[in-house]
């Protein structure tokens, strides 16, 4: 794996983080908002920054992929390589990414509705290329879409919940958002896990494939996800109920827990970028 492939993975990771966060913040804002004005404004700023960053990373990722095809910097602007990518599902993915992110940005200015459509288009973009898109079972794309929607929702709640829980003035609001998220997550999280397992089975096809490079990285991802689940469970079963009983101390625990969740979620996305841009799926012998 050379510098171009590694750069593509790094850009892929940053894109996942910024795009999923932008999508998630939009969805969480629509379902759990509106938040207090200060948090609402900070959330809007974060959506804008993430969407613009994701747009830049989309262009950069496309050019880096072209460079990986030639193995040198000439590929960054090589018309033949760029056109080749444009004609494959990577081109469709590019169009959907730009359309989705643009709608999210326009929706920020014009009001809700367009940004949710943008988030949905962005999810469709994720299903255009990669291991899942080339699977023999087309239903896996739908499963991936559901998986991503669940992840975006989970990631999207973390920043506003963090902001609310660390401010004494927003204590009740933090308890409300934490409780409401916990109720929705009780349905969404099992579904996203199920979708993840269905995809893993659909791509790997057997338990023995877990010993391949792809399988080992996938196991690493599952370990990180189980830590996330533990933290999520602690939030839902301990800290948020304690906050609803008026225990102010619990807000500090929630802040620490959410901060850790954000770091581990970033690690999960890094491992996902490696999975999607790194090892090939194991071949049946």
């Amino acid at each position, binding site marked *: *794996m*050379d510098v*171009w*492939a*590694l750069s*593509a*993975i790094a850009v892929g990771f940053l894109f996942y983080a910024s795009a999923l966060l932008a999508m998630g913040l939009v969805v969480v804002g629509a379902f759990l908002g509106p938040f207090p004005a200060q948090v609402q404004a900070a959330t809007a700023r974060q959506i804008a920054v993430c969407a613009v960053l994701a747009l830049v990373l989309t262009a950069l990722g496309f050019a880096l*992929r072209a460079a*990986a*095809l*030639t*193995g040198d910097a000439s590929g960054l602007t090589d018309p033949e*390589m760029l056109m*080749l*990518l444009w004609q*494959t*599902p*990577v081109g469709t*993915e590019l169009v959907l990414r730009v359309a989705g992110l643009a709608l999210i940005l326009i929706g920020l200015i014009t009001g809700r509705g367009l940004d949710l459509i943008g988030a949905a288009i962005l999810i469709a973009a994720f299903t*255009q*290329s*990669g*291991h899942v*898109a*080339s699977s023999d079972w087309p239903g896996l794309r739908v499963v991936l879409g559901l998986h991503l929607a669940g992840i975006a929702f989970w990631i999207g709640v973390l920043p506003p919940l963090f902001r609310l829980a660390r401010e004494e003035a927003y204590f009740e609001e933090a308890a409300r958002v934490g409780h409401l998220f916990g109720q929705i997550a009780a349905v969404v999280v099992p579904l996203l896990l199920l979708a993840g397992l269905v995809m893993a089975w659909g791509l790997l096809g057997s338990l023995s494939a877990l010993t391949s*490079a792809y399988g080992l*990285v996938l196991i*690493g991802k599952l370990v*990180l996800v189980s830590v996330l689940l533990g933290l999520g469970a602690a939030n839902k079963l301990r800290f948020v109920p304690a906050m609803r009983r008026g225990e102010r101390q619990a807000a500090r625990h929630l802040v620490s827990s959410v901060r*850790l969740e954000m*770091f*581990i979620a970033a*690690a999960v996305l*890094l*491992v996902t970028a*490696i999975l999607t*841009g*790194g*090892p*090939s799926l194991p*071949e049946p012998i």
Partner: protein
Amino acid sequence: MKQVLIAALMVLIAMPALAHSVIKQSAPADGDVLAEMPSQVVLTFTKKIRLTRVELTLGDSGTSLDLSEHKGFGTEFMLPVDVSGTGLFQVDWRGLGEDGHVMQGEFGFEVK
């Protein structure tokens, strides 16, 4: 937190070992020792691929093999070789999978 960072670092370090390689076979095969330079290099892949660069290197000098006859996706590529010499040759190939994945790999052979 520290454990998470260490784990992420370990994954990053392990990444070079995870390079794509879907090549099924090649002629010459990796490690072959030949009496004379082959007139072509044949690459066979397990899945369809569009080759974008194949470089044949002997020591410090490298030559890009002609791909003008291979502008589409396929699984078998016969590439004429217009290079002579003796020593250890390395073939580096790059291409695009139909799913948009960039793939690469290399193998070597020796001409006595």
